[in-house]
C-alpha cells in the first residue's frame, strides 16, 4: 500500500507538469497581452493595460482581423451544420448492415489519417485542372469537411450504438413513417449530442489551418491571417489576438460541455 501511494504521487506530479506544459505557454501570452503600450514580446511585463486587446480591433498596418474572423465564423457555422446533417444520415444508415458499409467506414477514417498537405495539394490541383479559382468558401469548404465529418461520424456511431431501438420500433408499430419517427423520436433523443458535435465541428473548422493553407484563395480565414502576421508583427498585438481567439474557443467549448451536461440530465429526468 505504501509503495502504491508513492507511484500515485509520482504520476500525479507528472500529470501536473504535463498540464503546465499544455497550458503554461498559453497563459504566458495571455499575461503578456495585458502589457502597457511600451510592452514587448518577452517577460518581464512592462506595465499593465488593455491597450493591446483594443489594438486588435483598430485598423492594422499588417492586416485586418475583423473580416477574416467573420469569414471563419461563417465558414465554421456552415461546416458544423453540414457535418451534422451528413453524419446523422450516415449514422442512421450504419445501424443496419449493408454491402459497402466497410468501404464507406474506411473511406471516412482514411480522411483523418491522410497527411493534411495531400488534401490541400490535391484539391488545389483539381481546381487548377478544372480552371476554377480557389476560395475559402469553395475549395476551403471542401478541405474543412474532410477534417470535421470523420469526427462527427465517429461520434455519431457511438451515439447510435448506445441508442435503444425500442422507442422507434414502438413508434413504427403505431404506424409512424420513417420520417416522422426520426423527427419525433430519434431527433429529440440525440439532440444534446448533436449540439456537442455542432460546437466541436465549429471549433475544428474555426482553427483549421493546414488543409486550407494552400487553397484559400485571395481572402484569408482567421488562422491563415494570424499565420501571415507571425512573420511581420513584433508587438504584443499578436498575443492579444491569440488571447482573444483562444478565449473565444474556450467559451465555445465551455458552452458545449455545459449544454451537453444539462440537456443529458434533463433527458434522464
Amino acid at each position: 500500500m505504501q509503495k502504491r501511494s508513492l507511484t500515485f504521487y509520482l504520476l500525479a506530479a507528472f500529470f501536473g507538469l504535463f498540464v503546465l506544459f499544455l497550458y503554461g505557454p498559453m497563459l504566458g501570452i495571455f499575461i503578456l497581452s495585458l502589457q502597457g503600450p511600451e510592452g514587448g514580446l518577452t517577460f518581464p511585463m512592462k506595465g499593465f493595460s488593455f491597450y493591446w486587446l483594443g489594438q486588435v480591433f483598430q485598423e492594422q498596418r499588417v492586416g485586418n482581423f475583423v473580416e477574416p474572423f467573420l469569414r471563419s465564423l461563417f465558414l465554421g457555422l456552415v461546416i458544423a451544420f453540414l457535418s451534422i446533417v451528413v453524419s446523422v444520415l450516415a449514422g442512421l444508415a450504419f445501424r443496419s448492415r449493408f454491402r459497402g458499409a466497410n468501404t464507406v467506414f474506411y473511406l471516412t477514417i482514411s480522411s483523418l489519417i491522410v497527411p493534411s498537405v495531400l488534401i490541400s495539394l490535391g484539391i488545389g490541383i483539381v481546381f487548377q485542372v478544372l480552371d476554377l479559382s480557389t476560395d475559402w468558401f469553395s475549395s476551403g469548404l471542401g478541405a474543412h469537411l474532410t477534417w470535421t465529418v470523420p469526427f462527427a461520424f465517429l461520434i455519431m456511431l457511438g451515439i447510435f450504438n448506445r441508442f435503444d431501438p425500442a422507442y422507434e420500433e414502438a413508434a413504427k408499430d403505431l404506424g409512424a413513417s420513417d420520417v416522422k419517427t426520426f423527427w419525433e423520436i430519434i431527433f429529440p433523443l440525440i439532440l444534446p449530442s448533436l449540439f456537442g458535435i455542432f460546437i466541436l465541428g465549429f471549433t475544428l473548422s474555426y482553427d483549421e489551418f493546414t488543409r486550407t493553407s494552400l487553397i484559400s484563395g485571395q481572402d484569408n480565414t482567421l488562422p491563415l491571417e494570424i499565420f501571415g502576421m507571425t512573420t511581420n508583427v513584433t508587438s504584443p498585438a499578436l498575443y492579444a489576438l491569440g488571447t482573444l481567439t483562444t478565449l473565444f474557443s474556450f467559451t465555445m467549448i465551455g458552452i458545449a460541455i455545459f449544454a451537453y451536461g444539462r440537456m443529458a440530465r434533463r433527458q434522464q429526468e
Partner: protein
Amino acid sequence: MTAKSWKGLETYLLVAPQTLIFLLFLVLPILMIVLVSFWQFNGYSMVPAFTLDNYTSIFTSSVTVKTFLNTFKYVFLTWFFTLIIGYLVAYFLAFYVKDQRWQIILFLVCTVPFWTSNIIRMISWIPVLGKEGLVNQLLINLGLVQQPVEWLLYSDFAIVLGMVHLYNFFMIAPIFNSLMRIDRNLITAAQDMGASGFQTFKEIILPLSAPGIAIGSIFIVTLVMGEFVTVRMMGGGQSASVGKLIQTQIGSLQYPLAAANAVVLLLVTLILVMGILRVVDIRKEL
C-alpha cells in the same frame, strides 16, 4: 416496390452525401495527384504527359532524400515522446483517479487545448523559449550559462517540442480509451495470484492497451509525415520536411514535382500504417 428493396435503397441514400463528400474532396484529389505526378512542368504551368522525370529527380536528389530522412526523424522523435507522455497521463487517469467525475474533468483538461488554434499554441512558445525568453532568463540568473541558449527556438528541438505539444491529444485519447475498457477484475485476479505491479502491467495492461497505442501511433505518424506549419514556425529557415518541400514547390507552381513528392510521401505513410496494423489488431477498438 417492396418494403425490403426500399429499405435497401434508403440505406444507400442515407450514406450517399457523406460518401460523395469524400469522393469529391479526398479520392478525386488524390487520384489527380497521382495523375499529375506523371505530368511535365514547362516553366510556368503543368502540361499533360507521361514522364517519370519527377520521380527520378526525387530519388537522385540528395537534398530530397535528406529531407525525407529528416521527416522520419521528426516522426520518430514525436512518436516516442507522445507515447511516453501519453501513456503515463492516460495510465494515471485510468487507474489512479478513482472518482469518475474527476476522471472526466481531468481528461477534458487534457483535450481542451486540442480544440484551440495550433498557430496560437506555437506562437505562445516565443516568450518561453526565445533568446530573451523565460528559460534563458532562468538559466542566466542561475548562472548555468553565460550566453542565452540559441537552440531553444528555431531548431529541431523546438520543432519536436512543438509537435509533442500540439499532438499529444491523439495519443492520450485512444490509450485512455483502451485502458478504460480493461476489465478491472483481471487486474485484481492477477494481484490475487501474486503478480507484482510490474508483472500485472506487462502481462495484462500493456497487451490490452496495445490497440490504443496503435491507433495513437497511426495518428502521430500521419500527422507528422505531412507537417509543414510547425516546421516552418518552430524551425526557422533551415529545417526541412517533405511537407514544407511540397509547399515550397507549389509556391513556385511546380505542381507535377510537388505531386510526385506527395505520392512518395503517401506511399511511405501507408507502409508505416500497414506495419503498425500488422503488429496490432485494432478492429476490436473500432
